[in-house]
């Protein structure tokens, strides 16, 4: 008889793996990718491929030549970072800038902290914010959707709903006149507006959310608390002064709110571990997003909000513990 394996319990495993989760998120991003290709055509394809390939390459190269460890690109996390980075970029972004962004995302955002599992900040957002600061012009000129299916660098650019709103309000126009210049809520929902590659189609991103919830890749806590907070907070401001502050639907359907709430804030590594912590994290992101959008210099605030809250995660995890069994002490019936 062959020798018996002796190891401590449990003797079975769920079969879940890092790979399954990473590829699960990638699958969940495919509807949004399809929407991106539909609205932005060639540009979306080039930007996505460039970001994914360079992120995977940098992870492989850093592990192989710098850290001299076994490359782990097979786990899908680098490809996912690339995909998320691409989704946060305008689709007329030159390849060389994307390569720089990928290097920053993987090299600084992920590997400098010790690789998957150790990074404090969402790597794709580190890449994105680096590019936003270094290349503000390229990062804030978005191709007009549906007019540029076969163009890339030469795409005609236009304003996004958020920038129309921000500039209009700054020029003293009222919300109601500005609303007539931007697409209707239905069009915003299906993604018919200017913006970064993967952030536009709320409907496609929501399909991804449902998929991830069913597959138990993430829980509802972060997306719901981010979107809910933005909705309630911007809604209250709108109620207080409808002519000075845009409505809640406008806020949640434009810019990177859906992409951020569903895919960026839920990044395992850079989000809290307890359900309560996740909700606090989500509320913080929602709050900061609205503050930046309404009072800050940038029309868009989700990326900064997530990065800021990423920084608070160690603190949140330290003080916010999961609900323990037996905390609510109940005594005998009589």
């Amino acid at each position: 008889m062959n020798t018996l394996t002796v190891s401590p319990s449990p003797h079975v495993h769920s079969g879940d793996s890092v790979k399954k989760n990473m590829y699960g998120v990638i699958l969940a991003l495919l509807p949004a990718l399809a929407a991106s290709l539909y609205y932005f055509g060639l540009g979306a394809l080039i930007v996505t491929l460039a970001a994914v390939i360079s992120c995977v390459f940098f992870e492989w190269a850093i592990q192989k030549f710098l850290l001299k460890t076994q490359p782990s690109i097979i786990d899908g996390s680098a490809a996912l970072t690339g995909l998320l980075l691409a989704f946060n970029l305008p689709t007329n972004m030159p390849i060389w800038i994307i390569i720089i962004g990928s290097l920053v995302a993987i090299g600084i955002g992920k590997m400098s902290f010790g690789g998957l599992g150790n990074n404090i900040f969402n790597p794709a957002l580190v890449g994105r914010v680096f590019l936003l600061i270094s290349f503000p012009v390229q990062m804030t000129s978005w191709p007009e959707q549906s007019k540029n299916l076969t163009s890339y660098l030469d795409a005609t650019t236009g304003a996004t709903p958020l920038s129309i709103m921000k500039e209009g309000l700054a020029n003293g126009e009222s919300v109601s006149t500005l609303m007539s210049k931007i697409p209707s809520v239905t069009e915003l929902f299906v993604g018919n507006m200017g913006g970064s590659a993967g952030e536009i189609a709320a409907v496609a991103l929501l399909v991804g959310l449902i998929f991830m919830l069913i597959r138990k890749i993430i829980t509802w806590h972060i997306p719901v608390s981010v979107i809910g907070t933005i909705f309630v907070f911007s809604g209250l401001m709108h109620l207080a002064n409808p002519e000075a502050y845009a409505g809640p639907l406008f806020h949640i359907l434009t810019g990177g709110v859906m992409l951020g709430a569903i895919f960026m804030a839920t990044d395992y590594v850079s989000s809290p571990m307890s359900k309560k912590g996740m909700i606090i994290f989500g509320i913080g992101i929602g709050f900061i997003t609205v503050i930046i959008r309404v009072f800050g210099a940038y029309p868009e605030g989700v990326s900064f909000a997530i990065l800021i809250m990423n920084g608070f995660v160690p603190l949140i995890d330290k003080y916010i513990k999961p609900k323990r069994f037996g905390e609510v002490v109940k005594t005998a019936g009589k």
Partner: protein
Amino acid sequence: MLKTFSLGGVHPEENKFSAGKKIEVLPVPEQVSVPIAQHIGAPSEPVVKKGDEVKVGQLIAKSTGFVSANIHSPVSGKVLKIDDILDASGYKRKAIIINVEGDEWDETINRSDKLITEISLSPEEIVKKIGEAGIVGLGGATFPAHVKLSVPPGKKCDILILNAVECEPYLTADHQLMMQKGEEIMVGTQILMTALGVDKAVIGIENNKPDAIAHMSELAKKYNGITVESLKVQYPQGGEKQLIDACIKRQVPSGKLPIEVGAVVQNVGTTYAVYEAIQKNKPLFERVVTVTGKSVTKPSNFMTRVGTPISQLIEAAGGLPEDTGKVIGGGPMMGKALTSIDVPVTKGSSGILIMPEKIATRKPIENCIRCSKCVSVCPMGLSPYLLMTVSDKAIWDRAEEEKIMDCIECGSCSFTCPASRPLLDYIRLGKGKVGQIMRSRTK
């Protein structure tokens, strides 16, 4: 909605291959090895010596304290020797080895199958007799039953909960026992209720056993105060704290026993043994053992004498499959991997699970990706990823603060972790250390 416990939980593949298989009485082996430490607490003290003739049911080792248990001979024959043997723990421990001759039972044991419903003993007499009969928790915990039934002064018990969830995958011994000995279990429940002085008992059964729920509910109609609670399938519902929470929505506080919330939990198998001890004067020396596994040709439930080498049970279930990689005493979540198939069945052997090599080996460990899944599934509301880290780094005060001692070692965290991290291995180590530190403090 079906009831279940409030926090965490997982749902491993059930694989109850031996469900519905009638309990077969396994022939008495030629030789038995009866370990003297088969229960939680102090090992018993042998009262027989080499060469002694023994009968079935005769006391062969005496309890050595309150938390300890008597051991009775499972066979008739001659004591060959008292010697160290390899037992299910993987260590060499003392056992009484008996060569079997015939099958002669102690005359005081009533061997008829006739149901006796009338309870004639007083609560004190019942507890005493349960102690004498050497009954321990048969769900696998092997905690002496009479200890749990002795409610400490100042505490009050108002409800008995019967653990019939059999939440471990693969195992079916309790399920089958309910189907065949339901009536006896009902009387056993009444005996326990009398002993505790309570008028309510709940039998918790997971709803993957609809036949048992129907059968027991039907029987319960005839018995005052006994109800059956159908529970949602969720592991580890068989954990005492989880079961109490599921059935009656009371949470036992950290570091406390069920009696704190007025409940006492006993397993159904134990309850059957109580019936036999009180009504038939039969001490505990045999039990139902499930023998099962993906490649086992004849998954079965056997009525087996304590001390029988498990190799005989495996033989009776069709033999050890070619692809065997691991043999587990108990279920896949909390059972113990055995070092050899020559170890004997003990009072705590609920099952023997034979695992093919393919699933017996663990996957390589990866970095923690902070997915928080281990936190979500922990039924005690702990942070397993953190407990592993602090145990690894030996930060014991932090481990204590994070309630490492609350861990019930259910294994849900390791089962779930996508990075295949051996969370429970480290937590166990940490528990051992923190337990030591805490004990030295009270001294």
